[in-house]
C-alpha cells in the first residue's frame, strides 16, 4: 500500500513540476512585458493563459529534425541529460514534512552531483551539433561550470555546518528558530549567484548569449529536443528557487494560518520572480569576467564564510 501511495506521489510531483515549468513560460513572458512597457501574450484565452498550451502543441508537433552533419547519438542524448538531472534533483526536495520523493541522508551532495551532470548536457550538445557557434557555446558552458561548481558546493557547507546534516529535512527543521539566510547571508548570495550560472539565466546565459553566439549550444536544436532544453531551463529555475527556499528560507515553515505546502510555494515563486526580474535588468558579463568573479571573489568569500561559520559553531560548543 505504501509503495502505491509513494508511486502516485512521485507521478503527481512530476506532473505538477512539468506544469509549473510550462506555466513559467507564460509567467516569464507576462512579467517581462510588465517590466518592459508592453503587453506580452494576451490573445490566446483569458489573459493569454492558453498561450502555454498553444506553445506546447506547437513544439510537440514540430518536425523532429536532426541536421545531417551532427553526431546523431550524442545530439539526441544531450537534451535529455539536462531534464533528467534536474528532475532527479527534485527527488530530494522536501515540499512539506509529508510530501517529497526520497529522504536522502546525503541530500545536498546528491543535488551537487546532479547539477554537475547538467553541465554535460551543454558541453555535449555544443560538441555534437558540429557547428562553430554551438561549439563556442559548449566551451563557454564548460568554463562556466568549472568556475561556479566549486564555490556553489562550498557556499552550501555553511548551512550544513549549522544544521549538522546533509539531509534537507533536517536542514529545514534546524531553521525553526531562525532562517539560515540571516546567519548565512553570504552563503545565500553566493549560492544564488551560482544558481543563476547553473541555470544559464541572464546575466550568466553566456553559453547561449543570443546577441553573440545566437543560441550557442542549442543553435542546431529544434522541435521537442529544443523544448527539452527550454523546459529544462525553467525546471532549473524552479529547482534553484526550491533549494534556496529549503536551505535558507525555512522550507515549508511559516505561521500556521496557511498550510506548509502553500508557504513553500509562495517562497519558491518569490524566487522565481526574482530570477525573471534579474533577467529583465542586467547585462551579460564576458565569460572571463564571470570566471574571474568566481575564482577571485566568490571562491575566497565562500571559503571565508565556511571558516567563520565553523569557528562560530566550534566556539559555541566550547
Amino acid at each position: 500500500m505504501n509503495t502505491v501511495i509513494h508511486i502516485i506521489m512521485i507521478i503527481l510531483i512530476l506532473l505538477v513540476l512539468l506544469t509549473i515549468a510550462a506555466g513559467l513560460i507564460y509567467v516569464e513572458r507576462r512579467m517581462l512585458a510588465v517590466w518592459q512597457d508592453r503587453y506580452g501574450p494576451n490573445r490566446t484565452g483569458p489573459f493569454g493563459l492558453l498561450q502555454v498550451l498553444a506553445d506546447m502543441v506547437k513544439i510537440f508537433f514540430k518536425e523532429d529534425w536532426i541536421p545531417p552533419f551532427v553526431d546523431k547519438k550524442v545530439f539526441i542524448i544531450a537534451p535529455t541529460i539536462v531534464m533528467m538531472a534536474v528532475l532527479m534533483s527534485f527527488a530530494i526536495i522536501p515540499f512539506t514534512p509529508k510530501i517529497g520523493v526520497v529522504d536522502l541522508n546525503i541530500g545536498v551532495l546528491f543535488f551537487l552531483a546532479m547539477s554537475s551532470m547538467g553541465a554535460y548536457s551543454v558541453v555535449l550538445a555544443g560538441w555534437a551539433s558540429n557547428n562553430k557557434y554551438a561549439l563556442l557555446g559548449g566551451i563557454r558552458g564548460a568554463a562556466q561550470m568549472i568556475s561556479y561548481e566549486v564555490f556553489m558546493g562550498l557556499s552550501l557547507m555553511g548551512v550544513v555546518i549549522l544544521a549538522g546534516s546533509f539531509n534537507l529535512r533536517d536542514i529545514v527543521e534546524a531553521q525553526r528558530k531562525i532562517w539560515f539566510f540571516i546567519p548565512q547571508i553570504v552563503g545565500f548570495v553566493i549560492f544564488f549567484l551560482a544558481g543563476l550560472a547553473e541555470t544559464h539565466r541572464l546575466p550568466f546565459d553566456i553559453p547561449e548569449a543570443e546577441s553573440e553566439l545566437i543560441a550557442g549550444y542549442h543553435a542546431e536544436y529544434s522541435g521537442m529536443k529544443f523544448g527539452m532544453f527550454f523546459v529544462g531551463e525553467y525546471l532549473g529555475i524552479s529547482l534553484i528557487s526550491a533549494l534556496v527556499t529549503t536551505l535558507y528560507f525555512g522550507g515549508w515553515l511559516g505561521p500556521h494560518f496557511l498550510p506548509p505546502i502553500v508557504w513553500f510555494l509562495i517562497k519558491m515563486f518569490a524566487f522565481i520572480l526574482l530570477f525573471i526580474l534579474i533577467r529583465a535588468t542586467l547585462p551579460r558579463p564576458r565569460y572571463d569576467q564571470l570566471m574571474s568573479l568566481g575564482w577571485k571573489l566568490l571562491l575566497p568569500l565562500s571559503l571565508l564564510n565556511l571558516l567563520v561559520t565553523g569557528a562560530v559553531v566550534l566556539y559555541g560548543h566550547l
Partner: protein
Amino acid sequence: MSDISSILEQQFPEAILAKQPTKDEIPTLWIRPTDIREVLLYLKHRVEQPYRMLYDLTAIDEQARQHRGGQPASRFTVVYVLFSFERNAFLRLKIPLTDEQPAAPSITSIWPSANWYEREVYDMFGVKFEGHPDLRRILMPRTWQGHPLQKCHPARATEMGPFQLPLEKQRREEEALQFRPEEWGLEADVKTENFMFLNLGPQHPGTHGVLRLVLELDGEEIVRIIPDIGFHHRGAEKMAERQSWHTYIPYTDRVEYLGGVMNNFPYVMAVEKLAGIEVPDRVKVIRIMMSELFRISSHLVWYGTFAQDLGMMTPVFLMFNDRERIFDIVAAICGDRMHPNWFRIGGVAQDLPKGWDKLIRDFLDYMPRRLKEYDKMVMRNSLFKRRTIGIGIYDTDEAIEWGVTGPGLRATGFEWDFRKKQPYSGYDQFDFDVPIGKNGDCYDRAIVRVEEIWQSLRIIRQCVDNMPAGPYKSDHPLTTPPLKEYTMQDIETLINHFLGVTWGPVIPPGEAMVGVEATKGHNSYYLISDGNTTSYRTRIRTPSFAHIQFVPMISRGYTIPDLLAILGSVDYVLSDVDR
C-alpha cells in the same frame, strides 16, 4: 593662411592642369595622374595646416557630359576630397583618365582608408588602381558583369532583358559564394594552426543588419577580421541618375534609414546650392527641428540595441516606445513615420500643422525623465561599464586617418561638430554644446551619444520657442513643387510650374557638395548637374562606410563579446554603408 590653390601652384607648377570653379566654393584642382601621389603626400604631411583626412574618394564617368566648361579632357575622373581640421576646409582634387581601360595609382600607402574607396570605384567604374593590395569588387556580387556606374550600364530592370537562372548559372553563383580563406587574404592552412574561421553574419542578431564579418579566431580571441559588405546595396547613386531632382528625395530617406529627413537635408541643400535658392528662415528652423527629432530617434535605437548587444533585455523596449512617441509627432507633421520624405528643393512639403508645438512641447517635457531613468539603468550599471570601458579604443589621430566622423570622433576627445564648425541652415543661431569623450572607448562613444540626445532636446526647444513666421517654401522658380499662388496670375509662372511638376526642375550645370552632421557622422551629397532634369552624378559619402572599414583595426585582440560591444558602439546602419 594663404590659399591652398596658390600654394599648390607654386609647389607643383607642372602637375596642376586646371582650376575648376564649383558652386560649393570648395577649391577644385585638376592634377596630372602621375603626380597625384606626390601632391597628396605633400598635402597630408608637408603643407602647413595639413589635410589629414581622406574624406572621400570617388569617380565620375565623363562620357555623356555636355557642360564641361574648360575642364581637361577625361573619360573617367577620379575625385579625391580631403579635409583639413586645422583649416576647417575641404579640398577637391581630380585626375583625368583618358584611356578606355582606365588605371590610376593607388593611394592606399598614403591613406589606408583609401582601400575600400578604391575598391568601390573599381567595382562601380572599372577604374583599376595600380598598387592596391586587394582590388576586388566590394558592393556588387563577385559574378556581376560590367560596372554599374558607368554611363553605358543599364539603370533599369527593363533595360536589362529578362532575368533567367538556368542550372548552370545557379551553380556558378553558388560556386562564387564558397568561402576560400586565401581569397580573403587569410591563411588557408587551418590544420597546422591553432585558429578557426567563424562566419559572423550576414544574418546575425549582433550585426544589426546584413553585415558579414569573417573572423579568424584563436579560442575566442580575434586575430583578424575581414568585413564583407554589399548585401544592402541598392544602387542609390545609380538611381539618382534616372530620377528627377525632385523624385530622388524619397530615395535619400532610405540611405540611412534611421535618420529619416536628416538624409533629405544634405541632398536638398546641395540642389539648392546648384540652383542658387535661398530658403526662408522658417524653412531653416523647421528643417533643423525635424532633423534633431530624428537624431534623438536614431540615438534611441542605438541606445537600446547597444544595451541589447551587451545582453540587456529591457532598455530596447522602453527606448523603442519613446521612439514611437517621436514618430507620432513626425507622422502628425509629415504624414509618415520613418521615411517622411518631407524636405523639398527650396522648402519643405507643407507648413507645420495646427497644434504642432504642443506635441513637441509635451515630448520635451516627457523625455528628460526617461533619459535620467536610462542613465541609471544602463550607463551607471557596473556590469555595463565593465563591458565597455577600455574596449575598442582608438585615438584622434587614428580616427582622422581612417575618416571617422561624428560621435566616434568626438569620443576621442576631439571637439569637432560640423554644426558648430561649418554651420549650415542657421545652426550658428542655436545655443548647444558639443559633448566629447576622453578615452575613445565604447563607453565614451556611448556617453557622447547620450549627451547628444540632451543637446538635441535643447535645440528643439529653441526651435519651438523661436519658430519664425513666413513661407514654408522659397519663392524661386526652381523650388519644387513651386508655390501655387502665382500660377493662376501669369503665364510665365504657369509654364514654370507645369514644367517643374511634369519634367521636374532643370538645375543649371555645376558641381556642389554639401554635408551635414548626421546621426552617425558626416554625411554629404556631391551632386553634378549637367543642366538636365536629372543629376549627372550623385555621390553619397556616408559615415558608416568609413566606420565599418575601421572596425577590424579596433577589434583586434579582443574577444567575440567585445566585438559585439564595439559594433554596437560604432553605431552604423548597413543601408548607410552600402547605399
